[in-house]
């Protein structure tokens, strides 16, 4: 009884308040909120999304070695960081420097005027002046100014265990037909040729989509498709799905319950043959398997299409509203310097590659050396589905592709539903 009385009273108070809220409601959205990070001209704030233990420790060490200005490092769990990023940038007193991704996602923030123009770092003696033209293009906003400082990147490929391939007596393929034949051979040995964890990480299914589109329609078409200039239910994408369909019988069916990390286990225990994934796979395999791991390029389908690869690039940008722009640029220059890059990569235990050509890579493991060569022999570079578009468009791909994996026969209706939801995302 007490319970019911309280509810009624609370409800009436709520109704009264509702009237007030509609009058005053503008306050909630009108003014910019304070993100909680404070900085003045003497202290710089670096907001980091690197919340995994090794990368976090690595960045802490690298920032600790910077002595010019006092730097406060705020590390935030990545999903929170992603959600709060617009708020950080829009606040009255934003963090000076932030970790994030190159490509269309950075360009999007730049077009809203949130990012500091760092063009002078890319010219003359600037810290990024020696970086490759491809990286420069990736770090350039729509207005032609550079707004991003890339510090490391990684590659994607079809990873496999050398000893397993030896055991099965097979070789890495270079053409599509060879690849299909290889899958058939591995399957005949009672092993799932391909593993892919699309359960809690459905975005992994976009890896194959991206690559098939790059191999069949090329990088330019792929970028335009993700920018909304082509349709997901057009003949080009249908052709991509035709090729994807050929692969379906070769996937480990349990993969749809797995995360990308879980799906590494069958590969490591030789119950699966190959895995199309990023170089970060080395952090997920047991240490005694790392040296047995190798990769090859996703096979060529149309030899007339310039070879394209995914090489997601990470780095930093600075807030346009920073109170100490000179200090922020100086910190960015330090983070982009060969020594800082090398130290970060070493301490974070990843297989990431440095963006600076001055970093001595001779001490890097052979797999990483091969990764560097792999990308150097590539004509066009893309990032990944979400980085080339947006996280919201990624979820439309997740829905469409996981549904396709379950019901390949419904491909036409799946693609038209994908196009409809993609159109909504791109228009918003």
């Amino acid at each position, binding site marked *: *009884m007490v*319970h*019911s*009385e309280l*509810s*009624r*009273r609370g*409800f*009436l*108070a*709520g*109704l009264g*308040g*509702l009237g*007030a*809220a*509609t009058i005053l*409601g*503008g306050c*909630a*959205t*009108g003014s910019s909120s304070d993100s909680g990070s404070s900085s003045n001209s003497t202290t710089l704030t670096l907001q980091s999304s690197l919340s995994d233990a090794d990368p976090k420790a690595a960045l802490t060490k690298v920032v600790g070695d910077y002595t010019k200005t006092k730097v406060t490092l705020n590390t935030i769990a990545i999903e929170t960081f*992603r*959600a709060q990023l*617009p*708020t950080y*940038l*829009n606040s009255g007193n934003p963090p000076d420097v932030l970790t994030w991704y190159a490509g269309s996602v950075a360009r999007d923030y730049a077009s*809203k005027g949130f990012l500091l123009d760092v063009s002078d770092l890319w010219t003359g003696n600037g810290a990024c002046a020696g970086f490759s033209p491809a990286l420069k293009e990736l770090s350039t906003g729509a207005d032609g100014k550079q707004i991003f400082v890339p510090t490391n990147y990684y590659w994607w490929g079809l990873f496999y265990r050398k000893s397993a391939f030896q055991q099965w007596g097979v070789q890495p393929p270079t053409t599509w037909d060879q690849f299909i034949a290889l899958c058939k051979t591995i399957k005949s040995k009672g092993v799932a040729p391909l593993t892919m964890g699309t*359960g*809690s990480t*459905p975005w992994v299914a976009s890896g194959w989509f991206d690559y098939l589109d790059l191999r069949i329609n090329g990088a330019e078409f792929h970028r335009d498709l993700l920018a909304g200039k082509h349709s997901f239910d057009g003949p080009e994408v249908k052709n991509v799905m035709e090729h994807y369909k050929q692969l379906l019988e070769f996937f480990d*069916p*349990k993969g*749809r*319950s797995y995360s990308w990390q879980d799906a590494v286990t069958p590969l490591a225990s030789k119950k699966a043959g190959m895995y199309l994934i990023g170089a970060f796979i080395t952090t997920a395999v047991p240490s005694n398997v790392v040296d047995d791991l190798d990769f090859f390029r996703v096979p060529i389908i149309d030899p007339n299409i310039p070879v394209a690869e995914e090489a997601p690039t990470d780095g930093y940008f600075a807030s346009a509203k920073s109170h100490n722009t000179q200090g922020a640029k100086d910190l960015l220059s330090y983070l982009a310097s060969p020594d800082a890059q090398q130290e970060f990569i070493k301490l974070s235990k990843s297989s990431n590659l440095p963006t600076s050509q001055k970093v001595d890579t001779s001490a890097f493991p052979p797999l990483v050396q091969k990764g560097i060569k792999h990308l150097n022999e590539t004509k066009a570079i893309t990032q990944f589905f979400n980085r080339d578009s947006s*996280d*919201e468009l990624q*979820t439309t791909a*997740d*829905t469409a592709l*996981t*549904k396709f994996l*379950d019901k390949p026969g419904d491909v036409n209706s799946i693609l038209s539903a994908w196009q409809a939801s993609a159109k909504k995302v791109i228009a*918003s």
Partner: protein
Amino acid sequence: MTTTTLEAPVAAPAGRRAGGARRVPKVVWLFLLVPALVEIGMVFWPALNSFYISLTKWNGLGVAQPVGLDNFRALFSDEVFRGALKNNVIWAIGFGGLSVLGGLALAVALNRPRRGVGLYRSAIYLPMVFSLAVTGLFWRVQYQPDGTINTLLGAVGLESLERQWLADPTTALYAVLVAAVWRQVGYVMVLYLAGLKGTDPTLDDAAAVDGAGAWQRFRFVTWPQLRGVNTVVFAVTVIDSLRTFDIVWAMTQGGPYHSSELLSTYMFQQGFTFLNLGYASSIAVVIFALALVFIITYLVRATKEGADT
């Protein structure tokens, strides 16, 4: 409409409350004022703002653009939203029904003191001490393709029933539901055990002497005495089923392809992954309205029944 039905019952005790106010020392009001302000500032004010935000298009940047009822119109043509609404209905019925029936049955079974009954009660209540996220992770392991459930099915020769519970759109929602009920049932049991302790055992004895069977004694003697507990259980269950979020998020994140999406998970995704704060707020308003409709209808009915007797 809702205000008129509610003003009448509140009007009567209002006089009594005003009289009581004079006897309360001023300093107590001061102490009450502080938590009240915190509550208003931190809970009611943001909650009310979501009503305003639901009428705008806002991505957290700059100024929100008022769009009238566009968000609500878009909602009802949004297939994912309609799917989530349907799933919420299934969830409310399944989660509410199973946990109330299960909890009540267990409470009645474990009400009488017997040897080892405390052990059973503790064991059934135990899942409640885990957070929902932990419950979700635990069940996710059971539901894995090579997990306990499939292994057990295989061991008793039911291989044909083995499936990828969380990856199959036809079973994902129900698989999560089982996990949620597994946890909730202990809670409802404890509520009903407390209610059964409050019933008068002499009435039960008298009915037994008069020749009433076990079912008749429960239905006509015990059940009417549980009305107070029923109100609490109903409110708790409806609110819990509408705010269910963590366990679904931990187990499926609404997937595969939105087949286990609930209003709360869809709201979270729209609000905090896509930053469509206006659209997400309009989903929040729908959830609020649903909770309110259920609870008001029930409370109005409960008060009426109370007045009749």
